[in-house]
């Protein structure tokens, strides 16, 4: 049965929406060392709706830029083009991730709010802990649970098997793997690979619940792991499985994490999420 399920899951991953053209064209520029301003402008010129959404994000209270940014060029000059690319991607996936997710019992908007929470909490943690080299952590946080969108209907169908007594003390992704042969983190990583996203992003999504199994220790993985659990604890996008995920002690010691760091980030995350998402409502 597991083989059959796995086949169905793989088929659904294959049918999952592709990354919209503008975002994938911009992502292809990520390996550039110099600012490809002209290319970015050329790509966004034909996407007025997307550009308007991105500029709303640029001007959101989350970034706290005091003057109003009215053009792609200004945004690139002020925030850097990598940041702008992150926001293009955020605009593109928000429409996909805004949907309800069965199985995990997430109502419309829950998964997206959780995604934004983990993105902003990850950035906040990286800053608080002085961890460098994690430029793409915002995107990693944003996309870490995208696999739930595919696995949800299978979780819904196998609810009874997944909630038996013997699984109660097991981390939920292990239960998924036991039942389906694949967990939502791996499903997410396969979606990101399909989208052609960079390897570190794929790894961050793949190992966000099991950072100790990553082929190499990666700060992005460790921080997303912590930010995810904190966001669930404070109830942002917490689903039917609740807090049934295990915290890695290796991660907390690698990051030199202390109680005060966790509580400080928890106290700020709600407002950061609000600052970011409020801008996405059309005026």
């Amino acid at each position, binding site marked *: 049965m597991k083989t059959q399920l796995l086949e169905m899951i793989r088929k659904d991953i294959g049918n999952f929406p592709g990354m919209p053209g503008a975002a994938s064209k911009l992502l292809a520029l990520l390996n550039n060392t110099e600012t490809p301003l002209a290319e970015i402008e050329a790509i966004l010129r034909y996407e007025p709706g997307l550009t308007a959404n991105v500029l709303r994000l640029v001007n959101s209270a989350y970034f706290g830029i005091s003057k109003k940014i009215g053009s792609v060029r200004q945004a690139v000059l002020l925030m850097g083009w990598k940041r702008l690319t992150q926001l293009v991607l955020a605009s593109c996936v928000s429409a996909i991730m805004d949907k309800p997710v069965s199985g995990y019992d997430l*109502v419309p908007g829950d998964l997206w709010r959780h995604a934004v929470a983990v993105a902003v909490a990850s950035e906040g943690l990286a800053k608080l802990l002085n961890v460098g080299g994690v430029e793409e952590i915002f995107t990693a946080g944003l996309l870490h649970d995208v696999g739930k969108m595919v696995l949800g209907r299978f979780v819904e169908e196998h609810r009874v098997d997944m909630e038996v007594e013997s699984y109660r003390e097991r981390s939920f992704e292990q239960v998924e793997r036991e039942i389906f042969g694949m967990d939502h983190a791996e499903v997410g990583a396969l979606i990101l690979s399909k989208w052609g996203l960079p390897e570190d992003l794929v790894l961050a999504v793949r190992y966000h619940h099991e950072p100790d199994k990553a082929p190499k220790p990666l700060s992005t993985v460790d921080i997303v792991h912590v930010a995810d*659990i904190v966001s669930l*604890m*404070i109830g942002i996008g917490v689903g*039917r499985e609740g807090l049934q995920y295990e915290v890695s002690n290796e991660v907390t010691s690698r990051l030199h994490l202390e109680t005060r760091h*966790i509580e400080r980030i*928890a106290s700020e995350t709600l407002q950061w999420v609000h600052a970011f998402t409020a801008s996405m409502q059309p005026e």
Partner: protein
Amino acid sequence: MSGENRDLRSGTIYQNKGEHPVGLMNHIVAVGDMKVGANGDTLVTHALGSCLGLMVYDPVARVGGLLHAMLPLSKINPQKASENPYMFVDTGVPELFRQLYEIGGQKARMVIKAAGCGQPLGNSEMFKIGERNYTVLKKLLWKNNLLLEAEDVGGVISRTVYFDLSNGQVVISSKGEKREL
């Protein structure tokens, strides 16, 4: 089951099911927020993970309040606490009682119930925010000669609370199952 949750979370009032506390008005209490009300109101809070849900009711005055506090002590972020005392147990609980006294509640009659305070799996002490929330609550109550009447705390589950202010009934919902507290 999940369909029910979904409708409830959008604030729909079930007049015909008889299994939920039904009031004239459902008021949603967000994370890090608090609401007080009177007979006829139902206070609802969703997604209690490690946060504390505190329900306080005066059955004579028929007034009550629900606090959804995120963290134990305000000293972690004093600026946040001054903007929003409901984020923290040590500042939110006294404020809840103060507001209940203002609308006719009396300390000696208060019925106090707690829910939430869960935690993830593993033995990491620093992630036991739920346990610390509960400890700070117990200390506060003890110092003020108050007792918890009932509680549904701990574990990995996420809880939703329905608090009916016409009779003080508290119903906890988790994984589509409901039970009275």
